[in-house]
């Protein structure tokens, strides 16, 4: 232990960043699926279309989260 080096700060930032990014993506996908399920239960005949649209939306949210995670990876690996 001892004083924190720059690398230590970078790793801390990478870890915290990954966690926060995942929180955001989790809330996003949670709301998306909740809305899709509600819509599908109100109108079961549209469930097929809804599923496709839902998966595309989930993939886009996931894409944003992945870009955040890539930044965290860069922080963790490049500084070391």
């Amino acid at each position, binding site marked *: 232990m001892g004083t924190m080096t720059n690398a230590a700060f970078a790793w801390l930032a990478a870890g915290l960043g990954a966690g926060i990014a995942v929180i955001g993506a989790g809330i996003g996908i949670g709301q998306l699926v909740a809305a899709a399920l509600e819509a599908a239960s109100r109108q079961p005949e549209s469930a097929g279309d809804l599923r*496709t649209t839902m*998966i*595309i939306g989930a*993939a*886009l949210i*996931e*894409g944003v989260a*992945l*870009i955040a*995670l*890539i930044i965290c990876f860069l922080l963790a690996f490049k500084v070391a």
Partner: protein
Amino acid sequence: MNESQHLLASNEAATTEHQAVEATTATAEHSAAPANEANAHVTEAHAEAHDVPPAEVFTHLFSELGDHHGIVLFGHVADLPLIFVDNGKVDFYTSEHSMEAAGTYTMHKGHPVKKVDSNPPQLDLSVTNYVFFQWVAMLLIFVVMRLVVGKYKKNPKKAPSGLQNAIEALVVYMRDTVVYANIPVKRAADRLLPYFLTVFFFILTVNLLGMVPGGHTATSSLSVTGALAIIAFFVINVTAVQEAGVGAWFKHLLGGAPIGLAPIMIVVEVLGLFVKPFALAMRLFANMSAGHMILLVLMGLIFFFKSIWVAPASVLFALFINCLELLVIFLQAYIFTTLTAVFTGLAIGDHAHGEEHAHH
């Protein structure tokens, strides 16, 4: 390091107890004594322990997961050839050993570098495990599709059965719900259908080969997914220009906003052109490498704690992750194809030359 040695030593018999103390003192010396002397102490302690520390088992397994020059088939290591092009000179080696023996190149941190200036060769065309398994996937797709086509040609009137039926279900599903549903122009959809089916089956097969014992997932390399995304980039934009015209393609860079907003919109839309394929590449890469890394970490826990009681939990959880991985494999192949189709449809927009709209 210090901790892993402790873990290792405490599990050994009483005779090795003092070695653990020696190892800790050796590492404690590390800060005070000259570095090389302290290192000598540590390696001595390792040699006496007659074992690989858990941390090194993990790094070894980790390097096995990545891109390297060899595959393991039924417990035997098969070497794959290394091909370098440097200053117009082509070097061919059958294995890493023969490369080291020839003396021009050497391995440094898992990458081949020149011995003279420790730079990588200008062009590395080596057949790595990822390249090999992509070839396996291509061969597999070719053989399976030929078989199915042969069956259709033999009895065109008979209802499909077996393998033919499975492939037909996938092809018809992709055609109706992915390509025709998302690309508004029928002519473009028909022309691009072979591309979408090829991409879908290629990604699916490459992903599935990673689940076979001894197999590697080529899509967990950013180079492979990047190449697929670059192809997708050209498919999206070339189709848009062909179907909607160059003028409409430039006009969609405005995003439908008034001309006054052009300085902002053009920057955003040009960025969007490149972010879409970039996200495609990243998504596939991250999803496919994450699953394998979780499996590796779960298995690594057994080595790390060196305890049989960790194994049942590890193995059961790994089994669960394996099932999840199967779902992810199909989902990611589907997502990549669907998103490419959606982006193509969006890029064409409503500007198509008076074409009839296929599905709405």
